[in-house]
């Protein structure tokens, strides 16, 4: 890795015989070069890390760091397939009991061994965290009893059969009971409680600036490639790319789409891409007779809700030119979607194909449904949350205008958007979703809204289909993985046929790095230092 010599134009370079100054200067140069040894990695992150407590808030940047210092019972690989983590195997003893067997000899960073005591403690800890706006309790609440069978075997009982438990447990990182008992958030940020079993040990955390880690040589798997890893926080897109071009960092995540072409063509850098788990789609209001923001061409409310007719929903889906959206607006960093979940995700139905662009067919369907002249609509979207979100909304508005639906576009910052959307103020609203399995996603997005069952928490359109609810329930209640996948695919097909939501595309996650490093790009968009390797 080449570092430019910063001091070469330093007017203070001594010309005379001033020894102390020479020593100082040499020390300064040594500091600059010495910190850049060959086996170190510097990664620029695109969002700030708010807390290092792995059970506090489920924010992607926080969990990203968590995966370096800690480990979980189960993991997902780069294709979002569930693989063993600390648990070498698991099985459903009966429909409401799961048994997990841990690897033997897994060590924490302080040398102690990881046993089921630590697992039980970690599974209970999320329920004790108060004051979190978005915690992990939802993953462990289905567990009603934890039974420690022996040092390496633990049984978890659920109230009702719940097939998604192993997947949910991949979100609960295992902390050391000794170090994290009664630990406050400050204990994690300072490192006192950051004792995990992950491939890296915690060194330092500077709020808003960086996290420094060092390799843990006692890791139970093969040691990672890098001695020291530094994560630097750089939320501004252009500055992040500039840092990579200047050589200040080795890797950047979330490459802005405008820089993709330039980095792809450069001989000094390499891109790693994978279809991400994030799907961008539109929610449509499907329960109110007079939904807000839908009118006829003169501005008066319509007699009925056009979105409750599947022909209108199909027409809108046909009117959207997904290949053009992907190619022009997203600059190739997306894949047209027909499923709620991305291609690698559990329950993705590969037989579903995105609706082909067919404006004439769309107009015909609209005429059949009783809207030959179309109607007026307001499209709502955030403007600072998803990649190119406001451009996508505007492009969709233009596409719908070509089939007679006159659209206004209302974009706003995410903080404002979310509150209004959850308050049911929109009829056609954009949302992005990433999930490890289709049945979980459908439960939140398309399940009939019922707070007591926990269905439809994010079903803004209040779409309701009892058949879909039944399929989702059966899928989640099936502990056999293959059977569950088949039911989930069936549910996905039903949701696609009935257009519970209108999927647009799955995003593609991109990492850019120096040519001598390679990365196995991940569907879940995590940037894991131990999966970067030196390359030719």
């Amino acid at each position: 890795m080449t570092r430019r010599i910063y001091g070469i134009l330093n007017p203070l370079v001594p010309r005379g015989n001033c020894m102390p100054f020479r020593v100082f200067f040499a020390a300064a140069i040594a500091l600059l070069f010495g910190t850049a040894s060959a086996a170190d990695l510097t990664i620029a992150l695109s969002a700030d890390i708010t807390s290092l407590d792995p059970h506090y808030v489920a924010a992607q940047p926080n969990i990203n760091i968590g995966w370096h210092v800690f480990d979980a019972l189960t993991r997902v690989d780069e294709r979002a397939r569930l693989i063993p983590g600390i648990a070498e195997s698991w099985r459903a003893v009966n429909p409401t009991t799961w048994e997990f067997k841990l690897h033997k000899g897994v060590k924490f960073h302080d040398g102690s061994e990881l046993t089921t005591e630590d697992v039980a403690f970690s599974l209970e800890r999320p329920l004790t965290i108060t004051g979190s706006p978005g915690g992990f309790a939802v993953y462990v609440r289905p567990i009603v009893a934890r039974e420690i069978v022996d040092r390496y075997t633990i049984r978890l009982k659920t109230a009702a059969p719940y097939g998604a438990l192993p997947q949910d447990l991949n979100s609960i990182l295992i902390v050391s009971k000794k170090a994290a008992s009664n630990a406050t958030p400050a204990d994690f940020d300072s490192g006192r409680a950051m004792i995990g079993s992950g491939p890296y040990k915690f060194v330092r955390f500077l709020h808003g600036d960086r996290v420094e880690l060092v390799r843990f040589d006692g890791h139970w798997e093969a040691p990672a490639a890098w001695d020291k890893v530094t994560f630097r926080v750089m939320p501004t897109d252009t500055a992040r790319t500039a840092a990579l071009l200047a050589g200040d960092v080795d890797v950047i995540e979330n490459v802005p789409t405008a820089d993709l072409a330039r980095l792809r063509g450069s001989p000094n850098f390499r891109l790693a891409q994978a279809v991400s788990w994030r799907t961008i789609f539109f929610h449509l209001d499907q329960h109110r007779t007079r939904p807000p923001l839908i009118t006829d061409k003169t501005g008066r409310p319509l007699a009925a809700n056009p979105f409750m007719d599947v022909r209108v929903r199909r027409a809108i889906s046909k009117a959207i030119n997904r290949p053009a959206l992907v190619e022009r607006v997203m600059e190739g960093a997306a894949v047209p979607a027909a499923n709620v979940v991305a291609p690698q995700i559990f329950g993705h139905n590969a037989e579903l194909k995105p609706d082909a662009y067919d404006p004439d067919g769309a107009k015909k369907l609209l005429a059949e449904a009783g809207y030959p002249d179309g109607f007026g609509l307001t499209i709502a979207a955030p403007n600072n949350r998803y990649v190119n979100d406001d451009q996508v909304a505007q492009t969709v508005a233009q596409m719908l205008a070509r089939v007679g639906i006159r659209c206004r576009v209302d974009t706003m910052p995410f903080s404002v958007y979310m509150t209004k959307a959850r308050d049911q103020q929109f009829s056609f609203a954009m949302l992005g979703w990433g999930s490890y399995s289709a049945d979980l996603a459908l439960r939140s997005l398309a399940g009939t809204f019922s707070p007591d069952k926990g269905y439809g928490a994010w079903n803004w359109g209040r779409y309701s289909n009892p058949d879909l609810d039944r399929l989702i329930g059966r899928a989640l209640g099936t502990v056999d993985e293959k059977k569950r996948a088949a039911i989930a695919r069936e549910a996905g097909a039903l949701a696609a046929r009935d257009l519970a939501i209108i999927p647009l595309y799955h995003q593609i996650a991109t990492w850019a790095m120096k040519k001598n490093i390679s990365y196995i790009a991940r569907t879940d968009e995590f940037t894991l230092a131990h999966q970067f390797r030196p390359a030719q």
Partner: protein
Amino acid sequence: MLVFIIRRLLQSMLALLIMSVLIFAGVFAIGNPIDILINPQADQAEIARATAALGLDQPLWVQYWDFLRNAFSGDLGRSFAYNVPAVQLIFERMPATVELALTAMLMAIVLGIPLGLSAGMKPDSWFSKTIMAGSILGFSLPTFWVGLMLIMVFSVYLGWLPSTGRGHTTLLFGVPVSFLNWDGLMHLLMPALNLALFNLSLLIRLTRAGTREAMLQDYVKFARARGLPMRRIVLVHVLKNIMIPIVTVIGLEFGSLIAFSIITETIFAWPGMGKLLIDSINVLDRPVIVAYVLIIVFMFVIINLAVDLLYSLLDPRVRLTGAQT
């Protein structure tokens, strides 16, 4: 003077109270932080639990009353996103911002006043005209663009300076600072320059205008008649007389440098308070927003107080109270 200071501090309490009410009402009007930070897989029961845990299900005046009660014991709330006390979070990041603001202000003063003085003494020379043209660029080019251009030129193309971040810090009286070591100084240079540009231009123009006016005054003519060297006239007599508007502007601008260095901090990933503020606004982290605004208001009060006290030092005719003492 003591009475003056005490009266000023009491008045500031009122300003703080009004600001806190405005922020509470404002953030409440924008939205609910739970909606933004909630775990996507959470169901309605979890959302209700989280809302209750943060006290956000209470009516607004109850939440404000709780906040006031805690504020009097020094607790301005706990950040929703960071889960540490808001005040601690802000004070942790304050040294970075203050250091950046001080460096920028220093650059602006050290470069701006001499340049403005020389431009004012010979207003028709080509030197003066170049400086004035440059100052127009300085305050019309947007900070965002200048920052990115600096990064592109000095980091990407020339490779002289690091592009972002703070670099090595050393402890000075327990406070981490960057200017005491080479690596930190290199990291400090571009953000400080970016931030200083606007104030530099402002000071150049102000100083030039003041100098031009002062040079035409009688006391300058008499001093020259007495045979005093030009250097003494300018540096001792003229400078002191033009300082009042300059000190006012420096005071105001310094406050806004600390409070609103958001853009520079965001571009250069400088871990300061400004970035903290914009991030907190984006996720509606109300305790941090309220604490930040209150601290900034208090800081502005202190700066204005210092400026007023400085007036009385610079100009013996100025009395602090304004009435007969």
